[in-house]
């Protein structure tokens, strides 16, 4: 705290003090916002590892005391929880891969080429979002049964891909739009083919944005319940397996289930957080 130093002239100390207050204000705000996010997560985590009677008691202790893994253990041992977690991962990664493979060229085309009906395509892509999947439920299930791909993880991944594509395409298109075409031209001037220019110049610049669209696909698929319940029977994903059951479960299980749903996404976000920043950085440019 420099402003406490008596050797400095008073007006300088005053300026330093004001600076300090401003900085503290920013810190306080940042801490407040972090607490707003972290406290519920902390509450869920501690309650997931508390005894049942502690979960019911009030006020809640800050640290679980005693620590109990009973509810968590019961939850994890419940049939279908672990396998449905695996199913969820498979579907989410398949959705991520499929949607990236399809959305990247589509987004590139929309942002780079002027072709007849380009606006119609854009609008068409968005209008897909206008159909609520609920009214498509029965026809969808009938189609999947008739095609013989009902109750399969890969067909669920197909549907999830269809669900995220509109948004992915538009996000990726705007990411490509933020990279000037002149860069590609310059690369071609130096002897790159258009394909090489794409992979050597554009791709590295847009990778964070594409990854961000991938995260979006992953999270959407991870959280999706309706199609998962409709299209799978014995191969349920985690949300389909526990979501409506959590809604009606007793408090200890709500916390255990909530914690279990949170952990994978926290791990995932931890790895990917830098790309998240670049999603906003690039897309809002």
């Amino acid at each position, binding site marked *: 705290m420099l402003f406490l130093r008596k050797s400095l002239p008073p007006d300088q100390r005053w300026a330093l003090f004001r600076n300090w207050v401003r900085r503290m204000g920013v810190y306080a705000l940042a801490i407040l916002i972090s607490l707003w996010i972290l406290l519920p997560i902390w509450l869920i985590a501690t309650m997931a590892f508390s005894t049942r009677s502690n979960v019911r008691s009030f006020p809640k202790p800050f640290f679980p005391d005693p620590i109990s893994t009973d509810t968590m253990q019961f939850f994890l041992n419940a049939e279908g929880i672990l396998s449905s977690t695996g199913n969820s991962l498979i579907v989410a990664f398949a959705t991520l891969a499929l949607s990236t493979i399809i959305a990247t060229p589509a987004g590139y085309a929309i942002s780079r080429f002027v072709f007849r009906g380009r606006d119609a395509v854009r609008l068409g892509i968005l209008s897909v979002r206008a159909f609520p999947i609920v009214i498509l439920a029965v026809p*969808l299930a009938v189609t999947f049964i008739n095609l013989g791909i009902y109750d399969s993880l890969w067909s669920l991944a197909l549907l999830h891909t269809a669900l995220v594509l509109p948004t992915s395409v538009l996000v990726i298109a705007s990411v490509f739009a933020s990279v000037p075409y002149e860069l590609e031209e310059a690369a071609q001037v130096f002897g790159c083919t258009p394909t090489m220019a794409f992979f050597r110049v554009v791709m590295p610049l847009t990778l964070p944005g594409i990854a961000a669209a991938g995260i979006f696909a992953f999270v959407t698929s991870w959280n999706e319940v309706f199609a998962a319940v409709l299209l799978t029977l014995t191969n349920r994903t985690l949300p389909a397996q526990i979501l409506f059951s959590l809604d009606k479960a007793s408090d200890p299980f709500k916390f255990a289930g909530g914690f279990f749903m949170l952990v994978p996404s926290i791990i995932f976000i931890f790895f990917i957080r830098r790309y998240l920043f670049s999603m906003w950085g690039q897309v809002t440019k």
Partner: protein
Amino acid sequence: MLHKKLRLLLVLALMVTGVFAVQAQDDEDDPDAVTFQSTQFNIVEESEIAREILSAFEGAINFVTTEEGPLIDILIAEGQSGSGSTDLVGALHGTFPSLVRNDLLFDLTELTAELDEMYNIADAFIELGLMGTTDYQYYVPWMQATYVMAANVEALEYLPEGADLNALTWDELAEWGVNMAEADGENRLGLPVAGLFNRFMQGYLFPSFTGGMVTEFRSEAAVEMMEFMRDVLWPVVNQESINYAFMNEPLLSGEVWVAFDHVARLGPAFAAMVDGDTDKEFVAFPAPAGPAGRGFMPVVVGLGIPFTAPNPDGAEELLAYMLSPEVQLQVLSELNFFPVVDGVDFDALPENVALIAAAVSAQSAAEDALPALLPVGLGDRGGEINQIFNNVFSRIVQGGEDIQAVLDSEGENLSNLLSETGAACWPPDAPSEGACEVN
């Protein structure tokens, strides 16, 4: 550096996915397994117990828990495509009309007759399974449940003088609430307003005061009933009630001493008492009676077999297994659903279940008992009638709107709903020719 991390994540993801994919291939499904879809026991704790009970069946079972909406969608889709994977359907009586309308279920008359001979199924429930026909058994009754009251023994000393716990009236319940509030300073009466509250209105309040569920909806008696609810009962109800969905929780935490809820939702409190997880003691007793009788709502769950079942024989065997008195007893003692067959040995019940079972039979055997069935024949618009009853409560008691005005406007909605669906009156209202009418 950035990309290294991404690569690491990708490798990790592929490994995890690979492991699970290999595992998933390992447990290939048994082709003879019976796939049993049930809207009941879809809570993690309950489905584990149900699986345990089903595991004693000699064949393999895929027990899949679901919700009403997706269940109906999937069965319709299976019906339309002509090939299915569901062998047996377990659902509330109120789910079946949608399946009946789409003509998806086998006639189980012969099987029912066989099982009736072996176990003597309750006739009233067999009749419900006919879904208004005379000779087409759409479902075989599986189990039943209902709603009762529970109280912490601490509350018993405030019971109004001369009141009989097993023959309470609504006025006595309100007086009890006043006594507790005066002695303790807190409102100790609790209602599951965030839970199955519509059943409280449909099956308990309306029938006890008006003698019907829908026909007397906007009558004089209904106005008096809502005056009682707003001015007498609600002021002594714990205001946290608007957040209660499971009354076992406030009972166990001690916030509430006297509560109304579904037996399965009161059950955990009694189980905790018997297991020594709590130092509180509870008693169960029938719902109160009003001027028109002791309205209560039996909930019937049935089992049906869709035309598209790949393994209908296995489904019939599983169905028969679940109706045996031994399994019915197990379901009662562990899952709090009551038998539909004779010959269940009640002496073998654990204490916590016996307490609730006594209240359930006292309620249905009461002299003034007035059973009110779940709404029938509204199909996929069943949710709307629940909304109407919830609206009556929230608009009058919470919103402070005029009682007659609310009953008139919601009565209009109810009347439209009934005439548009053509639903005939169901008990406790007198049977009607054609659509039920709101007087």
